[in-house]
């Protein structure tokens, strides 16, 4: 197994997911299968192949520096669970 339970717990923490022990075991196996599948590419010689920057062959999609319309603050804040003084409110950070 390339993926240990410790790896799964670490990735879960980074994604802020609370996993049960049973889930950790289950996901370790699933992630292992995924990695193994992706690992197939290592069988190929990719020395002269450029890394893919994007899945579609587009480049230089840029916009001019023009000001457009913004949301009204009450619309921007409409889905905020908590708000105060026209600001989003978040619980204490540290």
């Amino acid at each position, binding site marked *: 197994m390339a993926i240990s339970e410790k790896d799964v717990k670490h990735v879960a923490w980074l994604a802020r997911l609370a996993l049960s022990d049973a889930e950790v075991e289950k996901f370790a196996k699933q992630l292992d299968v995924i990695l193994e599948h992706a690992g197939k590419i290592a069988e190929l010689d990719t020395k002269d192949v450029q890394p893919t920057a994007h899945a579609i062959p587009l480049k230089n999609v840029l916009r001019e*520096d023009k*000001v457009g319309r913004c949301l009204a*603050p009450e619309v921007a804040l409409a889905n905020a669970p908590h708000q105060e003084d026209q600001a989003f409110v*978040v619980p204490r*950070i540290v």
Partner: protein
Amino acid sequence: MEFESVIGLEIHVELDTESKMFCGCSTRFGEAPNTQTCPVCLGMPGSLPVPNKKAVEYVIRTGLAIFCDISLFSQFHRKNYFYPDMPKNYQISQYDIPLCIDGHVDLEMEDYATTIGVTRIHLEEDTGKLLHIGGAGRIAGADYSQVDFNRAGVPLMEIVSEPDIRTPEEAKAYAQKIRAILVSLGVSDCNMDQGSMRVDANISLRPVGREELGVKAELKNLNSFRSLQRGLAYEIERQTKALQNGEAIVQETRHWDETKNTTSTLRTKEYAHDYRYFPDPDLVPMEFDPEWIEGLRAELPELPDERKERYMSDFGLPAHDANLLVETKATGDFFEAAVALYGGDAKIMSNWILGDLTYYLNSENVEIDAGEVKPAHLVEMVELIDDGTISGKIAKELFSEMFKTGKMPKAIVEEKGMTQISGQDEIAKIVDDVIAQNPDAVQEFHDGKERAFGFLVGQAMRLTKGRGNPQLINRLLKERL
């Protein structure tokens, strides 16, 4: 043991564009909270970012100005982290292919010159602003925080230096030079008070002569050039003591406290710096035409180093003056406007600008382009000295008045009766009085004591309330003695 400090700076600069990096929201500073947001900068599902062309151009111009290689191919990555300053839970930034790499900045210190390498310049988006409620406004101890996303998504350029800086003075000089260059380029106003230029410093110590780097601390909250210099000086002292006592330096982020004059561990949530960068699938790569880049190079405006050379060759200024005048673009502009108005010696303008004007600006903490004294004030005042209306001494008094009120020199001279007394008869009478009232000093002068003469001149000046023409007093006093 002798230690050497190794310092590298990360300078973040908000670019002076009208609209944000990936959406059309305005970047204006100081508006009511959350009035400049849209689905893109709020990270709403289904919204798509599109990069601001001008911001890309500004970063490339900066790279050209500090001798970087410009990447002909570049792309944006997502930097993933959970923190309430970004609604998307990632920041769009650049990773392995920044827009510019390998530049440098030359510094002229008081008695030596040095070069600071620039590792990279990349483009990203600024984060939102947090307002901590309770706990005296500090994040540690606050009850909760308010978030304003007006700043989230403003184009932000990060300039990362090599660890080539050795002293707090070099750090300050480097940051000041970067600012002068950016302001000359017109890519940012670099206003440290408003946070459009922010400096973080990495600093470690190592025994002199050793190659290997020591453990570093990252310093934050350096909100002025003064804080940068003082914060680093404090850290050098702290780390030196620790190392001499055999203590280990902990790699950490430290907060500079300007009022207490110390740094302290910044308590932030323990999160691993595991950003899992990956190319942003919402943004396609950028490829630049070398000809377009050469066009930008050809259009670069005059930069501080070139300006300094010109001041030395065209105006005959000493290197010391020229260096100080180009430290900010506004100072150089002031100097040039004054020289253009004034027919005489440019050095005289330089002396007043670097002397009295700088003194008053610093003591009142005013920027040169925001002060009451304009080039026209200075020139009119110097012309009053030149034609003998006022003495250099009165000019100093006049300058203070001009600085406070912004009135023109001629008006102040009239209003306050500051004109110089140059009438032969009037001065002669005063000189006679001085001689009559100070027989001891007169005797001392005749005994060969030169200092007694200076005393008598001083007495005459006092009687004229500083308005007597010094040359005339000197001459008449000599004649009568």
